[in-house]
């Protein structure tokens, strides 16, 4: 309605004032210049910086994760090798233990054998010495007894020992005869 009235009054709103065009165009171009020169680079820089910061952070996190994975891997390997080592050591210990036991047994048996032998030797030696001392003692006793009985001096050592030897030989012969019988 007012549109029509305006048209009647001759002020056509579609006819521009040339200065309006000029001022608006100049204003727009000044703003375009400022935006191109300062605003856009500033915001682009902010975006770029932030992008880099975020990407840097991501890369860092990724690296940390990779490191952690590597550490875990290494740890696992170490654990595995430790387990193997332990098993090996156990194995060795068992083998060593076995060999020690075997050695100890052997040594013990050797020792036992030696002790037995020694004992036998001692026994033999003691028997021999006992025999020897018994022989002399028996000889002396017999000689003294015989001398007392016979009244004959048997002081002569040579003779007396001969008599004793003969007696003992008889004794031996008797003993052997008894043993064979």
């Amino acid at each position, binding site marked *: 309605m007012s549109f029509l009235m305006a048209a009647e009054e001759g002020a056509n709103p579609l006819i521009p004032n040339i200065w309006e065009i000029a001022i*608006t165009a100049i*204003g727009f171009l000044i703003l*375009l210049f*400022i935006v191109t020169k300062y605003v856009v680079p500033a915001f682009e820089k*902010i975006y770029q910086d932030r992008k880099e910061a975020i990407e840097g952070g991501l890369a860092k996190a990724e690296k940390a994760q990779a490191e952690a994975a590597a550490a875990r891997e290494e740890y696992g390997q170490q654990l595995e090798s430790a387990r193997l080592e332990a098993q090996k050591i156990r194995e060795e210990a068992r083998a060593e233990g076995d060999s020690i036991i075997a050695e100890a047994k052997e040594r013990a048996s050797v020792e036992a054998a030696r002790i037995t032998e020694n004992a036998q030797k001692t026994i033999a030696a003691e028997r021999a010495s006992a025999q020897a001392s018994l022989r002399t003692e028996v000889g002396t006793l017999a000689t003294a007894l015989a001398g007392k009985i016979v009244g004959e001096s048997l002081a002569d050592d040579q003779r007396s020992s001969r008599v004793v030897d003969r007696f003992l030989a008889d004794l031996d012969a008797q003993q052997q005869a008894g043993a064979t019988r």
Partner: protein
Amino acid sequence: MISNGLVVAAGEQQGYQAPTIDDMHLPAIFEIGSFAFGKQMLLVMLSVVIVAGFFMYAARKRAMVPSRTQFIGEMGYGMARNSLGKEIIGAHAYKPFVPLLFTAFFFILVNNLYGSIPLIQLPTMSYVGSAYALAIIAYVTWVGVGIKRKGLGTFFKDMTMPSGVPPVIYVILIPIEFMSNMLIRPATHALRLFATMFGGHLAIMVAASLTQYLIMEAGGFAALASVGSGVLGIFLFFLELMIQCIQAYVFTLLLAVYLQGSVSEGH
């Protein structure tokens, strides 16, 4: 509702005079010959300061973690850059046009929003010269880019001869396409912006002046009708606020679409 108001006003026989276009054009602040520097031109200049000032202030720290102001600035810049530039022109070619799209959107937005700021209340694009100026810049840019990228022949071929049409149809199609793309397109680009701002401004003026008239001059029972026109005025204010934003976006969106046509290969 407006007709109701007018009927009531007419019934009073005191003669309600609706505001006219002449009321929209304020007297100049100063004049040099034919150059009349008025409020509208002052506002255009002020908008340059506002847009440049705000975004330079917002970006001054270049902080990694943005302050509230920087965040708003980044959001505005991101919208012009990504949703208007990257998504419409295409990721490979949008970069050089970001400043133009950004400037167009925020320049128009501020100039439109003047219409909703108390005491200023003058959308500068309701002066047709301003809308022409922007459309001319847009036209020169997208035609220039098209000719430079594709060469004169290919550019006009793309503009006037859509592919996939039987050759006979071209007889009709070439003049139509030429008219539509080369002549009507820039005209509508300017007039769409102008007309929405002009119409909205006028509608609010009518509602406001009617309310004022009904209260101050009609009086009595007719003053009750002022509630209707007042509510209408408030509704129009918010509608206009929305349109001011949408038209800034639409103008820039169309500029981006035209530029996309100029940089893309064929249709």
